[in-house]
């Protein structure tokens, strides 16, 4: 039973899904939250497929879909004009005594580039005290300016970039010393 996490704005708990193929293309899925779904899988190929669900009236509503396995743990599903991202949470054996990594949502002191681009202007220097929301650096990507702001109140510890540098998505731009 694969456990999957669906990335949306509201739901974040991983859900386990159990797929069972029944006769005549029919399938049944059971979810760890207690729900079930029954429908037909008409066909599925490398990237696309077609599912239908029975209406009360007797006809079936069809759902063409695309399924892209982005990597071994991430699958993108296109359905009804929406793209849903699903990941299989990694089950890392927890070593006894090992310090768990910071839970997501807690700032780790590193300001990262949210998109690739060119450093247009630095608005702070090392040692500057900053409040949450203080503009720190202006990036240019696709001819548009994006201003990165401080996620928390902190002090600028070090700056790893210079104007006109090209930065990759996710690269660390600055170290911020958060106030204890």
């Amino acid at each position, binding site marked *: 039973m694969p456990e999957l996490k669906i990335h949306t704005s509201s*739901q974040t708990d991983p859900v386990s899904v159990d797929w069972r193929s029944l006769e005549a293309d029919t399938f049944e899925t059971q979810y760890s939250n207690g729900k079930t779904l029954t429908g037909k899988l008409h066909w599925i190929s490398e990237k696309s497929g077609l599912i239908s669900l029975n209406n009360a009236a007797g006809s079936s509503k069809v759902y063409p879909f695309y399924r892209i396995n982005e990597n071994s743990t991430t699958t993108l599903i296109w359905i009804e004009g929406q793209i849903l991202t699903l990941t299989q949470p990694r089950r890392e054996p927890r070593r006894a005594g090992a310090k768990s990594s910071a839970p997501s949502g807690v700032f780790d002191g590193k300001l990262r580039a*949210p998109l690739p681009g060119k450093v247009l202007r630095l608005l702070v220097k090392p040692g500057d005290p900053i409040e949450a929301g203080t503009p720190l650096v202006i990036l240019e990507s696709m001819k548009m300016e994006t201003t990165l702001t401080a996620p928390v109140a902190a002090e600028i510890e070090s700056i790893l970039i210079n104007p006109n540098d090209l930065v990759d998505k996710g690269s660390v731009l600055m170290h911020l010393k958060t106030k204890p």
Partner: protein
Amino acid sequence: MIPKLPFRKVLVANRGEIAVRIIRGLRDMDLEAVALASDPDQAAEHVRIANEVIFLPGASSGETYLQGQKIIELAKANGIEAIHPGYGFLSENADFAAACEQAGIIFIGPKSDVIRQMGDKVRAKALMQAANVPVVPGWSGDANADWSEIESAAKAVGFPVLVKAAAGGGGKGMRLVQNPNELKDAWDSAAREAQSAFGDSRIFLEKYLDRPRHVEFQIFGDNQGNVLQLFERECSIQRRHQKLIEETPSPALNWELRARMADAAVKAAKAMSYTSAGTVEFILDGSGNFYFLEVNTRLQVEHPITELTVGQDLLRWQLLVAAGQALPLTQEQIQPRGHAIECRICAEDPEQNFMPSTGHLILYRPPEGPFIRVDSGVREGSEVSVYYDPMLAKLVVWAPDRDAALDRMSRALKDFVIVGVAHNAMFLRSIIDHPAFRAGDSHTHFLVEHEIPGKPACDNPLLQDLALAIAAAPKQTIQPANEQNSSAHPARISPWTASDRWRNHG
């Protein structure tokens, strides 16, 4: 019938969807279409469909598509007889147009002195005022005015005030300033953006109108002195001054107001002795007052909606005019039919404040059906790079009336499959389906006022359950029942699937 033109080999000095559209149009007229390709664009769609390609080493726009002198040298070395600049890049660069004229290459667009005049928003406004075209109240002092003078000018115009680049266009170098203490930052940042985008940092001030509509008129002139107007486009749905949705006719115009605005547009065109395709932009307030904004001396992004309602190929007209021929129709022969809408599909993530999204287009399946036109700059497998504009495609639909066109657009947006980069198709759909937009109540602050969600139906529990089911569905291919039967016929089996089958049944 293909008209005889004094040029055959045409360089398209652009990239993306407009280069694709122009190259197709050139090939429709049996001309030789030559593409330009920067390093990241070697496999781009506009290169794939051209007759020839000229490589431009480098990646950024500044190193490549903005290198006017280099492009003209390459054009001369390759026997190019005419250059179409598209929109953006060099299209409104008067020096480039003049350099083409001097090099004996036909620039497909208006004359360089008209581009220069209209590219300077301050001069353009003065010319229109002299021609009795109404203009927006504002201030345009000299470039060396000291800061206190600018500050008091802004106070005199009244806040909120728009800070605009004299060389600006397409929303670049433009800032809205709500109160006096934001003025300095906005002025500096607009000047910086204008310097980097246009190489000209001059700024002027304009009165900010509350909830105005953006209504523009397509104009066309030829070298025989004929001027036509091809009716309006309403482009009020904008995000940070970038147009997102355009339609024609405007739901705000009756025939009386349309006639008055069209008359002003023709007056504007005649005041500049305009040749080729151009657009006269106005803002329109709730009481039917309209003011000249600027003239765009190029074929606009949104030109297809006019093409669909007037039934003409505007690129073809540009080529005819560039060849010295007269416009093929008279004003009376231009009768718009039905309603057309365009949505700009951009690689921007509505969930992350419309941050540009880059990546590999794993899936790219544009919608199909009657009266749907998709002008794409990409195809499945394309890379969307950090170097250029994030627009992937323009989705354009036509229908006999506005409601039917909106329904068609809503369906087409839902059918547009793009996987690999974040994009705004469903965001556009929630605007198209919004009751206020349906009612025709659009204005340039629509998105701010109505707080349109980025991804409306993503939290639908049934879709989530279906997505989970699809992720858990079998990994191997399952064919439809009828195809399974037919593939049992030996003639239809490829050796590869056949060997799979044997192994399975081994």
